[in-house]
């Protein structure tokens, strides 16, 4: 379950270019290259979280719905990409399929179930989308079995890039960061500069008014939901090449995405971006630095476990701190 957390990416990374660097045998000195590598890892985790959180926060902002089953759409994307890539041999075909499959699953979910929940209270939404998680997880296990699938990094993106300071960094992870930046820019343009984005913003502000102005609000909702689902599916497909694709991979990602949007302010895409990068960096750097910091004060046998235990709680502590001062997040869209 904790496999999504960045610290554990490393142990499952089957394409680590420098295993001796990624899995140190003993305590290794803090070098600039290592620090940059960890910063990039944190950024990469943050970008993945942003892809999931953007849809989640958009759906909450526009429809006022809390969707626990968003992690299932992420899982759908990963499974679609892995199975298509396994049969056709093309990662890129798998990537396109994952977007389509997640968007289709999202639209189906919205039309069949979610649409009936907009007028309900949050408790009903939690219960119904919790039920959807059960249906999706068991359904996927039914279709694909309990064994994890594996997805190879496309040949173009295999290999590593030299870092300043002497280290190397996997090209694929850099590509993920680039995808995240592109998606963030794309979403910014979509929401801020297009007619669809204008309708989405109008829907956030006043849904009765925009319906009265003749916009088909039901179709808009389905579209927004499918868009959020496609982003989650994209995240699933991209992460699928870094870790095993299995049932239950969605929930840890979903919970981190919740932390992200709570920190950023629910409904705000900008908040989701800031929150995601913050969570990614704090989590990764905490896991990396805390044991080292504690080793200065504690004996080495204790510093490791204590540091790891505190580091795994760090983002939740961060969230509690932020909420203690700003109860509706950093960039609240609905206050």
């Amino acid at each position, binding site marked *: *379950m*904790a496999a999504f957390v960045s610290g554990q990416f490393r142990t499952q990374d089957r394409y680590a270019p420098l295993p001796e660097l990624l899995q140190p045998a003993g305590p290794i000195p803090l070098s600039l290259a290592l620090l940059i590598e960890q910063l990039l890892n944190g950024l990469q985790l943050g970008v993945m979280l942003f892809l999931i959180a953007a849809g989640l926060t958009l759906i*909450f902002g526009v429809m006022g719905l*809390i969707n*626990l089953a968003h992690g299932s759409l992420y899982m759908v994307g990963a499974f679609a990409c892995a199975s298509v890539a396994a049969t056709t041999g093309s990662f890129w075909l798998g990537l396109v399929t994952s977007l389509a499959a997640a968007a289709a699953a999202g639209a189906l979910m919205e039309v069949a*179930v979610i649409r*009936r*929940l907009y007028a*309900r209270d*949050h*408790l*009903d939404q*939690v*219960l*119904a989308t*919790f*039920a*959807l*998680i*059960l*249906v999706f*997880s*068991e*359904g996927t*296990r*039914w279709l694909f079995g309990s064994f994890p699938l594996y997805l190879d990094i496309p040949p173009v993106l295999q290999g590593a890039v030299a870092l300043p300071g002497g280290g190397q960094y996997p090209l694929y992870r850099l590509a993920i960061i680039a995808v995240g930046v592109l998606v963030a820019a794309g979403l910014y343009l979509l929401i801020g500069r297009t007619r669809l984005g204008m309708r989405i913003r109008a829907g956030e502000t006043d849904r009765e008014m925009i319906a009265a102005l003749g916009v088909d609000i039901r179709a808009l909702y389905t579209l927004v939901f499918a868009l959020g689902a496609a982003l989650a599916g994209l995240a699933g497909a991209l992460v699928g090449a870094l870790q095993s694709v299995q049932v239950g991979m969605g*929930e840890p990602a979903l*919970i981190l995405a*919740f*932390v992200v*949007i*709570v920190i950023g302010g*629910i409904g705000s895409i900008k908040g989701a971006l800031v929150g995601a990068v913050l969570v990614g960096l704090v989590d990764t750097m905490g896991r990396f630095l805390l044991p080292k910091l504690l080793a200065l004060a504690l004996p080495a046998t204790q510093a490791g*476990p204590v540091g*790891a*235990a505190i580091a*795994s*709680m760090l983002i*939740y*502590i961060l*969230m*509690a701190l932020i*909420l*203690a001062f700003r*109860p*509706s*997040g950093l960039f609240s869209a609905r206050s």
Partner: protein
Amino acid sequence: MSPREKAATLALLALLPAAALAALLLGETFYITLATRIAVLALAAVGLNIALGLGGLVSFGHAAFFGLGGYAAGVLATNAFNAEPLAFGLAGTTSMPAISLVAVLLCGLVALPIGLVSLRTSGVYFIMITLAFAQMIYYFAISWPAYGGEDGLSIYVRNAFPGVETAKPFSFFVLVFALLLAALALFHRLQASRFGAALEASRQNPVRLAALGISPFSIRLVAFVLSAMVTGLAGALFADLNRFVSPSMLSWHMSGELIVLVILGGKGRLAGPLAGAALYVAFEHVLGGLTERWQFFLGLVLLAVVFLARGGLIGLLAGRPRHG
């Protein structure tokens, strides 16, 4: 409470011990354990029902208290078994009353700061923050190796209760059922008390409650802490029932299940948690016997409950409450 609800409540309260007794007479030990499982889960859900049903506080993190109670039992018993003192030179214990007391106090102490932070928020924020706090404790339990980490912790001998042979399934059931009755009595008293009225008011109209000079925040905080303490007691008993504690008791899935128990039975109803737990365990047992994929069908049933039977089982049996 309407006469029909009263009848349904009394029937449920009579059915469970009757089923356990029948299982004892027929020598079906497994079904006694199943009845005990229902009683423990019902107790946990009674706790959540205080916050969720009466106060309208959708806590998606009650597994934290359920698991903390469980770990209190596991850790104290392990330390007593190994004759190792705990922190601060305190000894472990296998006495169930002592363990229950520790579990309840611990959950109260943990729920207080969680409530202080979480209750500043409302709506979706509250749901997610309680979830995040529970995850925090979950990851702590996983990464803390001293008490089993991810593998969990076994309790070798069920803890002792003076005058009760807890190793015998039926005696343990009677003990758990008595505690469930006590918790239900507490819930009933709370609901009828001035505090209960204020709590209901904090759910229905917090502004008006504040205008009457009662702070909704402190009412909610007390309800949240009480709720956590009852769920924590259930956690300690659950650990004793299974003689095993693991981080799964702390997981978000468990929090979801607790909510499901309350809703399945009927939120805010006295017997709702018991009805929900009985239904849930029955699903688990019957569907789980038929297919490995029983959770798929559980999901469909839950969707049906959300869309067709909003009052849960008690709502179906006894009609809508006077004011929901």
